[in-house]
């Protein structure tokens, strides 16, 4: 969670950008050159080697399941996945079985997508507007409300689940897609508002003042001045929220009807009911992982930025 971050992240953020972003071409003074040398000089080969070995060990469990997902069922159940290297047998049967068999992971994949997209778009939009008001509009009780929203981050979502479910049932909208989007949006808001507010405060006041002098209203300032500058910040939080919704189990378990079960829920149930069917579990797990992994590997820079700004939700 992000109480962490009011002071620290600015420096950490700037640093992450400096490390990851394309460096500007300009003449470096000798002092700067020396400090860059100090930063980039490699440590001892022993330390490097040890670090790499640890990183590989860290990935072995994932790799093992990955290899397993491509092996025939009989092989999976009689010998370890490491025998793959001495007697390789590759098959796509597991993926076919789990996607199209009665486990219907293809349907679950669609459910996850359909749940995730609005559950990312809606809270970010609402949070952007609220963050704008907290950052750039004057109104009574502004500070109190902002602190209240900030404090709501502390509340574990478990504490709201059952009354929320009761309300949904009363309104007759339970077990529809709407309650999934609504719940994810609600639980994302405190962190989203807080993070985006922090990013907005980094924008120079003079820019907004200038627009105001030109006669622009709040909506115009929001869309034409702020939004273009906030794209990296929005991307950071969007990736965060995307991974969170895609990987969520608790909200799906509480609110999703059988027709709407996402991938996480399907795998969780499969692990409970058919825990030794490793050919299904391994392929299913990788179907669920492929999209978040691609997003993570492709957009790691934004993800790290979001993390450093304090975006950890539990």
């Amino acid at each position, binding site marked *: 969670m992000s*109480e962490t971050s*009011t002071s620290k992240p600015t420096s950490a953020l700037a640093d992450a950008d400096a490390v990851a972003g394309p460096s500007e071409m300009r003449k470096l003074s000798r002092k700067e050159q020396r400090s860059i040398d*100090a930063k980039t000089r490699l440590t001892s080969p022993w330390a490097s080697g040890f670090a790499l070995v640890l990183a590989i060990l860290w990935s072995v469990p994932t790799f093992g399941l990955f290899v397993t997902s491509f092996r025939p069922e009989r092989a999976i159940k009689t010998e370890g996945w490491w025998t793959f290297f001495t007697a390789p047998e590759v098959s796509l049967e597991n993926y076919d079985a789990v996607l199209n068999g009665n486990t219907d992971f293809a349907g679950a994949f669609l459910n996850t997508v359909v749940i995730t997209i609005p559950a990312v778009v809606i809270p970010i939009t609402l949070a952007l507007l609220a963050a704008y008001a907290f950052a750039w509009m004057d109104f009574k009780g502004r500070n109190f409300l902002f602190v209240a929203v900030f404090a709501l981050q502390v509340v574990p979502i478990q504490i709201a689940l059952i009354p929320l479910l009761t309300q949904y049932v009363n309104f007759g909208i339970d077990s529809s897609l709407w309650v999934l989007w609504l719940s994810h949006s609600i639980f994302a808001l405190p962190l989203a508002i807080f993070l985006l507010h922090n990013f907005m405060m980094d924008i120079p006041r003079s820019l907004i003042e200038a627009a105001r002098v030109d006669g622009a209203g709040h909506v*115009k300032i929001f869309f034409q001045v702020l939004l273009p500058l906030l794209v990296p910040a929005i991307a950071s939080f969007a990736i965060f929220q995307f991974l969170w919704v895609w990987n969520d189990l608790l909200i799906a378990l509480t609110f999703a009807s059988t027709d709407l079960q996402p991938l996480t829920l399907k795998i969780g149930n499969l692990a409970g009911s058919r825990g030794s069917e490793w050919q299904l579990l391994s392929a299913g797990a990788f179907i669920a992982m492929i999209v978040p992994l691609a997003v993570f590997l492709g957009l790691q820079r934004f993800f790290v930025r979001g993390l450093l700004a304090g975006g950890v939700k539990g």
Partner: protein
Amino acid sequence: MDFLLDTTTSGEKIIVMLIAIALFVAVMGLVLWLADRPSVPRLVTVSGFVGPALLLLVLGLLYPALLTIIQSFQNTSKEFVFLDNYATIFGTPSFRTVLFNTALWVVLVPLLSTGFGLMYAVLVDRAFGEKLAKTLVFMPMAISMVGASIIWKFVYEFRPDQAGIQQIGLLNQLLVMVGFEPQQFLLSPPLNNLFLIAVMVWIQAGFAMTVLSAAIKSIPDEIIEAAKMDGVQGMAMFRYVTLPSVRPAVVVVITTVAMATLKVFDIVRTMTGGQFETSIVANEFYSQSFSFGRPDIGAALAVLLFVLVVPIILYNIRQMRLSEEQR
């Protein structure tokens, strides 16, 4: 219009999603258009911006939270029973195991993952292949906890020790190779808790490493250069230069991981279902509320979860103030 609430086919789901997004854009557009007309009072403009978010938070988080707190002092037929639910939780041996396990998680996960994360951040700093190594260690953060649970359940998989039967779980294979008997890692308390905790450490260490690595890289060069001139090296450099410089970040990471750990239930639910004395508060909340029909106990557990988070936050805020004063 039934399909708006009851989507069964793929086409319906996609259409409803598009309708929802269009509806949302239309409503927000209307709100902003109204809020921005020059004639409206400022209060309306402000409400247009913060209103939707605040409304959702009050109705969807604050009000339900209050209802849960009230429920935690009532029994299932909504009669007021004061602290009975809490007494049940603290007085029953099975619940005490849950509390003990939770304490184990909240102490071990932050310490181990931050410890490893810090060690790794120092080790990998300026190493050959730094980027690749960091990506590999960080990767579990992108995988769902359910996925991570499956990955590790397979590592822990057990096959009986008989002739002609080979181990398919990596850990048991290693045990067999060095001459031990294979173990049912997830079935025998209390050690099985440690094998579940290992999964969370595996996930969170990458987070700790990433944040601490950024902190290490932001230590000013002058400080490091000056220390080197004074002949500080190796462990001394870590002990007297690196560690004090990243101390605020370490506190942040430990408390963040502790809070995340308290609320996590995916791992326990997927790997053991809370059986074999492995349940923790977050998992027990779900089981009591939805499986065992005890919303009263569930409510008390949810409130307990909230109460447990508060001291961690307060500590975090206090440390932040301290480190700001020192500047």
